[in-house]
């Protein structure tokens, strides 16, 4: 993560390649985390306290998932897949930076303050995202669940009554659309590959499925947010339909495990998150303010 850049994106809410040139490759115009950080630093972003809490949840989901995906770098089954997982992880990191920058505006904190200087019990991520990578099939199972949840979530959130949440979601949904496609392709191939790949894919889904339920739990915060947020339970039917269709095509049963205890939204985490945070935070805590 970086400090807010001084130059401002001229049209921060412009979409896609509207400014692309036929002869020159440009980064394109889209909402960047830097723009949100700058708005927060200048005091022009004012999330309501409950909106900030909500953004913190989504930001922590994405941040923890990005850190997990980063652990695949140099360990992918093929160089091409290594890059694919890295790209998806960086997409998630971008979403995390946007949500955390916006949330931080409510408390006078930066994205780095929130990412590096909170304790485990202050993280609001759901348990799915902190689950260890396991083998490639387990990671694909986690990605498949994560994207099948994030895609309808961001699609609905893009019409949030909070304009910044809507803008972040509108940018993120296109990226998560690809994440869903990527994990679906792999789920189908592993399930339809060899006996061993099918066994591993089924085992990966068994491992991750108990953490599905937590994603769709309503609580007082989501009830209080009204049109600013998406009611978690409202997404369950679509999740069941889309994941069910893919699993049926793969010839795999939807795992019928009871839901794990959950509690991530209240800061109660499994034994895995502490190690992940220690690795993620050690440098920033050892050398506060370091830059490179």
């Amino acid at each position, binding site marked *: 993560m970086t400090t807010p850049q001084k130059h401002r994106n001229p049209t921060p809410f412009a979409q896609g390649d509207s400014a692309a040139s036929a002869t020159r490759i440009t*980064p394109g115009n889209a909402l960047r985390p830097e723009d949100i950080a700058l708005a927060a630093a200048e005091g022009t972003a004012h999330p309501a306290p409950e909106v900030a809490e909500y953004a913190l949840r989504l930001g922590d989901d994405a941040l923890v998932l990005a850190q997990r995906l980063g652990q695949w770098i140099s360990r992918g089954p*093929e160089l*091409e897949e290594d890059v694919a997982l890295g790209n998806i992880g960086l997409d998630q990191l971008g979403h995390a930076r946007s949500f955390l920058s916006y949330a931080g505006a409510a408390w006078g904190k930066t994205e780095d303050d929130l990412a590096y200087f909170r304790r485990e019990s202050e993280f609001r991520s759901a348990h799915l995202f902190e689950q260890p990578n396991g083998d490639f099939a387990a990671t694909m199972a986690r990605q498949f669940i994560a994207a099948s949840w994030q895609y309808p979530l961001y699609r609905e959130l893009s019409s949030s009554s909070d304009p910044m949440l809507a803008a972040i979601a509108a940018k993120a949904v296109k990226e998560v659309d690809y994440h869903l496609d990527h994990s679906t392709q792999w789920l189908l191939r592993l399930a339809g590959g060899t006996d061993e790949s099918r066994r591993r894919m089924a085992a990966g889904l068994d491992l991750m499925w108990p953490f599905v339920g937590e994603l769709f739990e309503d609580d007082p915060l989501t009830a209080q947010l009204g049109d600013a947020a998406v009611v978690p339970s409202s997404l369950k039917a679509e999740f069941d339909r889309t994941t069910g269709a893919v699993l049926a095509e793969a010839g795999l049963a939807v795992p019928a495990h009871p839901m794990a205890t959950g509690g991530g939204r209240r800061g109660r985490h499994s034994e895995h998150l502490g190690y992940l945070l220690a690795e993620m935070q050690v440098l920033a805590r050892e050398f506060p303010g370091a830059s490179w």
Partner: protein
Amino acid sequence: MCPAENSAAAPADGPTDAPVSRDSGTTPAPAAGAPGWPLWEVFVRSNRGLSHVHAGSLHAPDATMALRNARDLYTRRNEGVSIWVVPSDAIAASDPDAKGSFFESPQGKDYRHATYYTKSEGVKHL
């Protein structure tokens, strides 16, 4: 596209001499003696009105995944609006050793260029 990234995917020195398998549909068999995924050549069209240009090559288990890997490897910096992937062994290449007979013959044949001819009187806008 930076050169380091270009070469990261696979040596981009043209099609391999792997045996061509015609009976496997869109999924070419891995090259004999080279375990792993087959090689694909990637062509990227950068914008409307331009043609697809060879960007490099990559490994993928099938055409569907080759397109996704190409998207991840060669369009990360907004380089493209369309991608083609072609099995490397489906490309027939000219023989570099036959360069003389293939490509040097047109040299000196000025009459194949419009500038060889004198402009007729009264013709405008040439």
